[in-house]
């Protein structure tokens, strides 16, 4: 009898599960996207939930590319409403979106994020140029007018003015938006600083040169000195703390939160800070975006209010809670424009004109 009761309850439970699975009207905003934008969106989501008393949005960190895939998969309750991105939407992603009927998108520039190269406070602080960063970390570098596999093992070999210290840099894996940004902002710009590429620039037309840079300056070295450390930035912090000769690449917010353990490497004498990133004097910073599916506005409850909260002065303003988390805020004028565009649900113009 006992067995029968058990079987019966199992069947009833199973039926309940199936029945409950049927009802799925969505009362929460769904957000995906970049792990760099994640902490900021998290902050707004929690604040929105607290202020309105409604269910807080579900925020998922999928990486910029993964987020775009989910965001662009279509319109409707089953798809995400908002995605965060640590770079602008690519043309290919715009096409994917259009193909799936996601044509009305608002692009919101929420602020800037600096990429920092950091070292343990016990270690040696460096002052590098982007060219030196490229020479230390690229897979192939120009030596005597030819591109060869990177021969440099110590910073002194890269440039005589640098200390004799083994090159050892922990960085993000290729799936990460941080990696994309680092390659674009530090490596590409770095190789353009070198004479080898400068002479090429004279020889080739603009488009061909761009292609040439992309082909030759994008690969990080695989022979040891550059170490892919996974998406977990806290682990990099721990490793740097344990090994003062190692350097690490990550978003500025991690440096900001770990000031007692880490010191920043200067880029051409400029240390990353809220001020130097905002005014552009610190060389490695990137814009952060939010993409909103306008077809969902007014359909998914609270989406408009959420966007309004995101672009409010309390959130993205100079003393807002996003700056507390390490976001570098926009200059006043740009911010006002962004706020208007976001609340008016202006369409994205990046690829339309």
């Amino acid at each position: 009898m006992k067995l029968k009761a058990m079987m019966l309850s199992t069947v009833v439970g199973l039926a309940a599960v199936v029945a409950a699975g049927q009802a799925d009207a969505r009362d929460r905003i769904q957000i995906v996207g970049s792990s760099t934008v994640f902490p900021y969106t998290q902050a707004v989501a929690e604040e929105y939930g607290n202020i309105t008393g409604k269910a807080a949005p579900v925020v998922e960190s999928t990486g910029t590319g993964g987020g775009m895939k989910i965001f662009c998969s279509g319109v409707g309750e089953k798809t995400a409403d908002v995605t965060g991105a640590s770079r602008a939407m690519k043309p290919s992603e715009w096409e994917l979106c259009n193909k799936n009927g996601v044509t009305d998108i608002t692009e919101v520039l929420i602020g800037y994020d600096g990429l920092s190269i950091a070292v343990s406070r016990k270690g040696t602080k460096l002052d590098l140029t982007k060219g030196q960063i490229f020479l230390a970390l690229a897979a192939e570098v120009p030596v005597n007018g030819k591109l060869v596999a990177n021969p440099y093992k110590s910073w002194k070999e890269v440039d005589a003015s640098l200390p004799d210290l083994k090159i050892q840099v922990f960085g993000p894996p290729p799936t990460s938006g941080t990696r994309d940004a680092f390659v674009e902002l530090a490596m590409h710009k770095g190789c353009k600083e070198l004479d080898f590429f400068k002479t090429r620039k004279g020889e080739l037309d603009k488009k061909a040169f761009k292609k040439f840079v992309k082909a030759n300056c994008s690969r990080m070295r695989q022979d040891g000195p550059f170490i892919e450390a996974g998406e977990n930035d806290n682990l990099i912090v721990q490793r740097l703390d344990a090994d003062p000769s190692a350097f690490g690449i990550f978003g500025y917010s991690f440096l900001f939160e770990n000031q007692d353990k880490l010191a920043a490497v200067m880029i051409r004498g400029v240390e990353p800070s809220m001020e130097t990133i905002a005014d552009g004097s610190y060389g490695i910073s990137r814009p952060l975006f939010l993409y909103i599916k306008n077809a969902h506005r007014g359909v998914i409850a609270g989406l408009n209010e959420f966007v309004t909260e995101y672009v409010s002065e309390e959130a993205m303003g100079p003393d807002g809670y996003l700056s507390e988390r390490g976001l570098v805020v926009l200059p006043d004028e740009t911010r006002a424009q962004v706020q208007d565009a976001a609340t008016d649900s202006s369409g994205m113009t990046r690829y339309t004109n």
Partner: protein
Amino acid sequence: MSDLPAINQSVTVDWSSEKAQRRVRRRYGAERRLKWFGLGAIAMALLLLGVLVTSLISVGYTAFVQTHITLPVFIDAAKINPDDPFKGKYRPMVNDAFVNMLSGIDSKADRRLAAKMLSRGASLMLRNSVVDDPAQMGKTVTFTFPMADPIDQLHKGVTPRDVPEDQRRVSDKEIAWYDQLVARGAISKPIAWSLIFSADSRFPELAGLAGAIMGSFYALLVCFLISFPMGIAAAVYLEEFAPKNKWTDIIEVNINNLAAVPSVVFGLLGLAVFLQVFGLPRSAPLVGGLTLSLMTLPTIIIATRASLKAVPPSIREAALGVGASKHQVIMHHVLPLAMPGILTGTIIGLAQALGETAPLLLIGMNAFITSTSGGIVDPATALPTQIFIWADSPERGFVAKTSAAILVLLGFLVTMNAIAIYLRRRFERKW
């Protein structure tokens, strides 16, 4: 070969000879070595476990307590909407009360800096308290609020105070104000029940595991309800009904194979089938449970088959002999006798599922959700994915929270495995 004695020839061996004794010594030596290797292996395993647990505790113990402040707040009825106490200027109210406790605040910037020492959750706690009991309006009520994470870390000694100001997260001013509060006896460090009873938050001082525990519970419930009956049915068929032929062999090989498939594969399957084909909601424990049941199913089938096999044939034959049908034999005799073993296997399978992370990442159960899940289709995280999220958060407080969450997860695993062992001991029958 020729010097071997013929079989029927008796050989006298001198057991006391030097050579024979050396042989005996060597055999005893081998035995001793085998024993020591085994013991060494166990010691090594225990040592590694010890290192793991010690390192978790040494980092995580600080997360089990939380720095609080005892703060009398005057609840100004003029600042609250009388019709809807939910709407009110609670933050300035709390901040004023807090800042007024401190001396040496001269400027607006100082006020702002000081207000940040208090957790942002304080004004919400005040609001909830007033909503629950509107009679508090116009009175001065004493609350205990959590302090913000940097102060919490300072109080716990994680943030050093004797280093230059630019090398730590708290400024000299904040330390001076904090010392004033300590001197007044306003700071306390009670057990952080919020670790278990609060949902996730971006503030380490407010974040808790309740959402993840409920998410794991619902996912395991779904997983159990699907894999337990299905596992038993499959095992009963294979063991009691199926003919032994090529097809059942193939099925058996595949079941064993399924048990060894990396879990991330099931995650991809869940993403492709449950989310994209069936259109089930992302981040829902229902999908998590379905995906996990794919992993648990082979474990349960294998455990059930083993327990069914262990029931002696004499029981079956006796039952058949008094005229029971096959159905009666199985349902009345074999299955109840095999149940302890089946339950043990099920619990071990569920414990594995509880610790599984990879498939849940793919179906979106690693989202940031600030409320506790209310059902199997409500978005939720699970314990291992919550650990994953916290491990990746920049705030210092989450380092300790991560270790604490791992300890909580280990606690659940130990409990489940202990129940499995208890069941086995309690109901196991020797034939």
